[in-house]
């Protein structure tokens, strides 16, 4: 059947789908990468565990058993918490701290919470502003912080999950070494917990600092994370 023979509704749906894919491509690409990386992490993690089983002359465990284990959970959660902390801090710190010349920063004069007029809230809201931006009181207050509240909640939840799953995984290691297990309260004071945490945090902080500084001088044509190629190094808060 030629394209001309397609019913109008089918062509319309196809066009809608293409539009939806194009308009949500950024989310879809990263969601796909996330799933692919998580699957890879599951298989490689299973291989590590089963290598340990083989070294102990014990039977291998299944993929299903591994991905429902605390060993897998702690490895996932410890990376999640650090990523969400990175973005939480980035969103929050850039309210008050600036970096002259960085597209990731506001201009120094705009440091702070800014005025209602600048933020298009309350009586300065536009007709198409979110409903809670047009409101006053607690709803405006909550909505004005909703991004950090959401990122913060996910960060704290992931960190708590890391500590709980980490306790179990650590105890498995303890028992493998013929040592007594520890409680959650003991685990969160152990070097194991803080080492897992801090080794992730340091890399996230370095990546952010690098991005802030490198984006002053370097460019990626077409990326909103970069200044336009011809923009002077001193230009701040200009995104491509």
């Amino acid at each position, binding site marked *: 059947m030629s394209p001309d023979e397609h019913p109008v509704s089918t062509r319309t749906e196809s066009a809608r789908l293409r539009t939806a894919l194009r308009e949500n491509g950024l989310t879809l690409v990263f969601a796909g990468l996330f799933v692919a990386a998580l699957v890879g992490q599951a298989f490689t993690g299973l291989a590590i565990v089963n290598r340990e089983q083989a070294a102990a002359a014990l*039977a291998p465990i299944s993929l299903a058993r591994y991905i429902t284990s605390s060993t897998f959970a702690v490895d996932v959660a410890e990376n999640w918490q650090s990523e969400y902390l990175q973005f939480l801090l980035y969103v929050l710190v850039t309210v008050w701290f600036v970096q002259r010349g960085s597209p990731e920063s506001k201009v120094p004069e705009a440091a702070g919470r800014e005025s209602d007029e600048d933020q298009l809230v309350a009586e300065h809201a536009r007709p198409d502003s979110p409903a809670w931006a047009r409101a006053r009181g607690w709803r405006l207050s909550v909505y004005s912080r909703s991004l950090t509240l959401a990122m913060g909640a996910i960060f704290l939840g992931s960190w708590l999950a890391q500590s709980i799953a980490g306790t*179990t995984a650590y105890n498995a290691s303890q*028992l*493998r070494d*013929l*040592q007594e297990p520890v409680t959650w309260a003991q685990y969160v004071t152990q070097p194991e917990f803080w080492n897992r945490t801090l080794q992730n945090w340091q890399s996230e902080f370095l990546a952010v600092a690098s991005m802030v500084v490198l984006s002053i001088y370097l460019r990626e044509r077409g990326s909103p994370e970069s200044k336009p190629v011809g923009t002077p190094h001193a230009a701040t808060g200009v995104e491509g």
Partner: protein
Amino acid sequence: MLCARNLRARSKPNAITVARMGRLRGIVGVGAATVALGALLSGCAGPGTAAPTGAVDAFVTAVSDGDGSAACAWLAPLVAAELEQQSGEPCAQAVLAPDVADAVGGAVGGAPVRTQVFVGQAIVAADAGTFFLATDGDDWRITGAVCVTRPGMPADCVLAGG
């Protein structure tokens, strides 16, 4: 027959921890200990028990009954290999040696006081000795038997392996 299930074939022992045989020699109450824990299982039960306490019970019962083959079937392969290397005898004989049998029998005297499982590893603490176990397929195998735990150090075990 289930209780005569043999250990899997093993190559040379890869010993890391030397079984400290005889450390708990002299612990008394072989019979009383095995009766209590062994009541849950028949003396002939082989691997296939899904709970770590069941594996400990079956191991203790097998030792008490003088069934060395059944007892060794509950040991992790490296533990059995370590025992053979240390004793110079097959596991089924070495596990029934008086110093081992006395220690195993004396380690348990009633229900386990504590059982904890963490991702394929388990600890079963009894009155006078602690057992460490690891999953092996659907079964539990003993990786440390009749142990005294020590803060910050591996437990001191009558039977342990690399």
